[in-house]
């Protein structure tokens, strides 16, 4: 049985054929026509799902009609409409709203938990917490995590991941401005050697990147640039197979320029064929009250199109409306 997201609502469906349908609220719905199939597809195609259209189409069909729709859908799109509906209606909109409604620290705790429970742990979330968040913010998240899940974040992370990812989260970096210039120099050399020899699980690299303060690391990265004429991030080649390498690279990027990092996450989320609504939601919802405005500006600079525009293009329905609202908040 197809699922629908909520109450049946009387709305109209647009006339357009083709894969994308503009939903026209307020009109009377029309009786079944072959054109309806297109509307149904349109309602699930692209980013997000138009629940109201789904509701209006499927909700008003009887069993025979629903079966016909399902068969036709399968023939044309080689996919099971049910499966598609299930995944689309798992509620990007619902998820986004739920996350938005939580207290910031609680929200981050939930996101961390979700990230850990995936079969392939989403290390981005963990690294963001340990490299971008201030120590006070991170502590608030840890407390919220303990309150909600009844054990510590470190326990869960350590038992779901191997290696050093979990440990990095425990590190409470010095958050002041004092740096040791001599140390910056020597540690820049250590990093350079490790990169040159592609030995990223070198213990010293882990030690430096996960324990030094942000100020100290910035000084180190500056020394690196002075000495080797290139920013350290440019020397970190993308090799998707090495998860450990990727984690170190992400950490360095987060520390080096967090807003640029977030812009990249959003850009990738939007460009990806098939969706990364989770990443899109995460960045927009968690940064909305922090630095989303600057991330928007960076996005525009990089892509020559506004983030609002890109989000509107790639998402639809309630989900789109909600994201746009959050994006517009500072205006």
């Amino acid at each position, binding site marked *: 049985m197809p699922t629908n997201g909520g109450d049946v609502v009387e709305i109209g469906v647009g006339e357009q054929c083709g894969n994308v349908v503009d939903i026209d609220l307020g009109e009377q719905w029309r009786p079944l026509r072959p054109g309806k199939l297109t509307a149904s597809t349109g309602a699930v195609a692209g980013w997000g799902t138009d629940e109201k259209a789904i509701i209006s189409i499927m909700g008003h069909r009887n069993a025979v009609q629903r079966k016909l729709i399902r068969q036709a859908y399968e023939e044309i799109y080689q996919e099971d409409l049910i499966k598609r509906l299930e995944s689309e209606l798992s509620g990007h909109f619902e998820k986004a709203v739920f996350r938005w409604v939580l207290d910031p620290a609680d929200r981050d705790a939930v996101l961390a938990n979700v990230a850990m429970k995936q079969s392939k742990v989403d290390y981005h979330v963990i690294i963001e917490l340990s490299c971008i968040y201030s120590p006070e913010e991170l502590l608030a998240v840890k407390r919220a995590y303990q309150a909600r899940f009844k054990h510590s974040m470190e326990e869960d992370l350590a038992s779901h991941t191997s290696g050093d990812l979990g*440990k990095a989260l425990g590190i409470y970096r*010095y958050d002041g401005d004092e740096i040791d210039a001599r140390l910056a120099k020597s540690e820049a050399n250590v990093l350079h050697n490790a990169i040159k020899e592609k030995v990223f699980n070198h*213990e010293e690299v882990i030690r430096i990147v996960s324990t030094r303060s942000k100020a100290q690391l910035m000084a180190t990265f500056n020394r690196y640039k002075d000495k080797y004429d290139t920013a350290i991030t440019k020397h970190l080649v993308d090799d998707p197979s090495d998860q450990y390498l990727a984690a170190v690279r992400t950490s360095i990027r987060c520390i080096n320029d967090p807003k640029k990092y977030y812009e990249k996450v959003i850009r990738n989320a939007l460009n990806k064929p098939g969706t990364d609504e989770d990443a899109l939601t995460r960045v927009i919802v968690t940064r909305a009250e922090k630095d989303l405005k600057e991330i928007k500006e960076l996005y525009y600079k990089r892509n020559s199109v506004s983030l609002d525009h890109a989000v509107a293009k790639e998402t639809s329905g309630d989900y789109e409306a909600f994201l746009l609202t959050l994006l517009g908040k500072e205006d």
Partner: protein
Amino acid sequence: MAVANEMGAITKAFSGFGVDEKSLITVLGKWHPEQTKSFRKASQFFIQDERLFERWIDKHVEQLKIEFLRFKSAVVLWTMHPWERDARLIKDAVIDGQKSTNVIVEIACTRSCDDLFGARKAYHSLFDRSIEEDVAYNTPGIERMLLIALVSSYRYEGPRFHEDSAKSEAKTLCTAIKDAGDKNPMDDQEVVRILSTRSKPHLKAVFKHYKEISGKNIDEDLVADSSLKHTVQCLSTPHTYFIKVLDAAMNPVADENTKEGLTRVLVTRADVDMKLIAEEYHKQNGVELAQKIEQMVKGNFKEFLLTLLARGDQLKK
């Protein structure tokens, strides 16, 4: 003769733990120059110089400096905010290197979650560094992973835990320790994970199951005097651990580093569980801790320690 007794008294006043200020004042302060000279000629603290005078042996003067300072150090340490205190103790341990790793383990494992975190904050203020980076930088090889994990822990402090995880983790520990072969269990990621992230109630269950599987307590299965053993002791039976520190400190042949344990334990546990430690001490050693201190320690330093020890009774902790 009274003089011989007095000489004995002054010798004694200058030896051991702390300094007997009263004797020094009443006796030494009153001696005629000839008496003092006799003392110097007979004393092991002095040496006949080639230019025909009795000279203090430098080593003894240095030691005296330390002994005079014990009271001051104890008082200053006592007055500090617990966070500053722990931060400074850790800094000293980091500087001292290998021989003081147990202090880092001790503090990381016996403090409450918020107190450990407070110490980490205080460390930032005092030294413009994090404990993590200093410990990481200064701890070589095999101990590094364990130590960083311990100092950066933020354990859940509620009572809930999973009996099943505790059982399986006890098995994991048992295998890692007993079937280690060449590998040092301290190098084992799972061992470090369990000991540094699990809550204390959870670990209590783990250690209980460990004993059932192994037949022995976990610390009995570990090589003497390693950071891993200290970790396990501090997490399972902290009182026993502290008693060991106290006994080692009051051993007549203890070195300076070990002697500092006396001040540290009394100052840091006075308002926490010193009373329980003292009771355990009595049970284990057959003598009251207060008595032992009375016997081994002198002067203001002794009085101060005994006062700290007596607090437990008054505060009803």
